[in-house]
């Protein structure tokens, strides 16, 4: 029989308890148990960044973290960013700057930039490029994403 553990965690502000197989990574747990399919799996070896979520304030590759390691932690996924007032400034900036095409890498990009901008208020073009250098995108050529990051930074500083 598979080895399982009971975990409790917070997902997008909601408490959640589950019995999980110890070998299941956080991304599969979020997608299959929590039914939050906005977190995408692009490589499952920790390079492409599509599966990035925020765990206790830090951007994490959910394919490299086991679900059991999220026990007691607070997880935010792409589904948890928008609120009743609409999309988060990072999400809006992606639309304004054509920072997405197929949308597959997008949740990981958005979560990476959201975590980054939470700690870095005044990035320049180079800083944004470094911040997303662990996230692969095949559609956009990155330029729209960089522009989105700069716009969101300004808005989060209260400049817009």
């Amino acid at each position: 029989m598979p080895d399982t553990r009971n975990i409790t965690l917070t997902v997008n502000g909601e408490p959640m308890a589950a019995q999980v197989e110890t070998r299941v990574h956080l991304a599969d747990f979020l997608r299959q148990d929590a039914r939050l399919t906005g977190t995408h799996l692009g490589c499952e070896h920790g390079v492409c960044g599509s599966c990035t979520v925020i765990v206790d304030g830090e951007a994490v590759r959910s394919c490299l973290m086991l679900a059991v390691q999220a026990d007691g932690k607070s997880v935010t996924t792409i589904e948890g960013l928008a609120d009743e007032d609409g999309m988060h400034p990072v999400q809006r900036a992606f639309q304004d700057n054509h920072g997405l095409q197929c949308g597959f890498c997008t949740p990981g990009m958005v979560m990476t930039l959201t975590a980054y901008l939470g700690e870095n208020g005044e990035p320049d073009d180079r800083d944004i490029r470094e911040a997303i250098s662990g996230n692969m995108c095949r559609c956009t050529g990155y330029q729209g994403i960089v522009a989105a990051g700069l716009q969101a930074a300004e808005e989060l500083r209260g400049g817009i």
Partner: protein
Amino acid sequence: MNRYVGAEVLRSEDPRLLTGHGRYIDDIVLPDMVHAVFVRAEYAHARVTAIDAAEARTLPGVHAVLTLAELGEPYAEKLMVQPYPSPAFAQDIRSYPLAKDEVCYVGEPIAVVVADTRHIAEDAADLVEVHYEELPAIVDCRQALEADAPTAHLDTPDNLAGSLAVGFGDVEEAFENAPHVFAEEFLQHRGGAHSMECRGVIARDQPHDEGLTIYSSTQAPYLVRATVARYLEDDESRVRVIAPDVGGGFGPKAGVYPEEIVIPLAARILKRPVKWVEDRREHFIATNQQGDQLWSLEVAAEDDGTIRGVRGHVISDTGAYTSYGLVLAITSLFPLPGPYAIAALDVKLDVVFTNTPTKSPVRGAGRPDAAYAMERMIERVARELELDPAELRARNFVPSDQFPYQPGHKTAQGSPVTYDSGDFHGCLDKVKEIADYDNFKSRQAAARLDGRYLGIGVSAYIEDTGMGPYEGATVRVQPSGKVQIQAGTASQGQGHATVFAQVVADQLGVGIDDVVYQSADTAMFPLGVGTVASRTVVAASTAIFNAADEVRQKAVALAADLLEAAEADLELADGTVFVKGSPTASVGLGELARQLTPFNTQAVPEGFTPGLEATSYNVTKGPPTASGSHIAELEVDIDTGAVTLLKYSVAHDCGRMLNPQLVEGQVLGGVVHGLGNALYERMYYDEVGQPQSTNYGEYFLPLAAEMPPIEIVHLETLSPLNPLGVKGAGEGGTIPAANAVIAAIENALAPFGIVVNDYPVDPQRICELLDQASVPSPAGDPG
């Protein structure tokens, strides 16, 4: 009149995708669904002597382990069907859906395991024991036609899959008395497509109901329907194919794969929906890639650099099978001679088998290879005759007053190749301007004083966009007043829903938010081709434009009756038809739709057909020719071989831009793909055909931190071939990029007399070239 066409309308697709509410293949869950994992070949070429699945079958949660024999008759003896037939085949060798008794590349599917969960299916797949007898493998296409080369398949005479030729003019004459003749040989390698979403298939069989439903992460749902129906010998009405949100395509997802046959058959056998989602390692070994081409060309030129002719030979790798026809080879050859007006051309191409995954188009298909070949000829002539490479291009471009221009050869379908319109000189002038080309030499000289090596490279191209044969669409006004577009074209991120809504909103005088686009479901619209070859905006927007125009005429005619006004006095705006000058005399489009869809005791208005709708098919009238010029500026570190891209400039002409922001997005993505081809992306195989680059630590995709600022200037030379004047924009960014980068590296290293030629080029190769250079480099000199 046009509120939306030509405007930077934000994408209607985005809010859904940005909030995690996209619906990609792996997000779909069907009742009773079980999960499949494939057992794949571990050798590049081997006989399969036995498959032992006994232990796997006993694992709790496993429903079946199916080999080819267990797919049942007639499939146990049935090869995949050819989606792209061609008279140019010497040997059209397709695979079985699962290997029969021979495997011809590492990754070829041998068996499928189906279990309650993906985890259990993977555990069971590990327990399946395949016994092999290894056979000699041919890995390098350059050796595939040698007399003693191993054959990629047992019982075949050689590795030749097919031959093609393209030519015009008197090539003998062009070379005979030419003042200059130069020969070049270069290997082009384009890696995989690497959509960030891998492939995936879900199938459900309901034999007493609607038949087979297949969800596939595909660019071409109608091609999948046609191919699966042919294979299963079923009616197309019994096969429904749906492409959900697709996380990037870039070519390989327009193929039809064994998994698209096996998963439906597994669902049929198990009487349950079956899901398979490819993982990234499988994508590296089992999804089509583009691979190698060896070009051996000669160019004949006048003293002033005018090109008289080009001739030569190409070896093009098709991998183990021809399951994507000869499309890659055809698109490598027929775009010659690019934007250049030359008198004679004679190039032959042999397609060869190797024991590597099937080769198929990747963004641009063979066009980047063809463009690179012509650009290499220009570079060589410019170098030998000490002419400015941009000036040499201008001397050889087709002049703007000669369109439509026919180089002299025929397409693979037999019609004369025709460039419909363009302004090649205008593009070059514009790109030189934004790249500050004329001042580069002083930047280069200043950097050289600091021991830094800057280089600049120019590249030009054409693209035959809007491939036929047709696309169609229905435009329908609903009683709510909202307009529905239904079409056959599947999107993988290009923004179809936004762009096509722009076209319809302008035609019908409604708001952009009042138009909904539905597609990529073969049950929703009857016929379609696929999203490939920068064709959709050309083929489908014309059909949509024409259908919307018909709806407009019908609305005006009915409104004229109702308002007792002349049609000429009516206008459409804000969702109503109104009499010019008296806006209160109006009727809403929704009301007109209601009148045209009456029930029971009501009548259809006399002289009208039911429904405020029209269906239109656009049979394309030849390919609109997109074009452009690129300039790369970069620095080469002669100590490490590292290349730093400093600036990339693009002049791009795709006719009328329906949405400039989306065109820009296509160009940017395309350029970065081309930069990856030039510098990073290489599939490595060892001498027995084992892939050595099967993850993103070993295969480098371009990343944000390495990409330069990219500046784009647009020209809009309208196409005369369609009412909107549009040309395709999906691949032009990629097509010329490799030469711009390679030429810039050569320019930077010109003091050492270095010619790079082969791509991708990595720092190690640049260091080797510097070590071998005729002029010693100061690298490593402590002084």
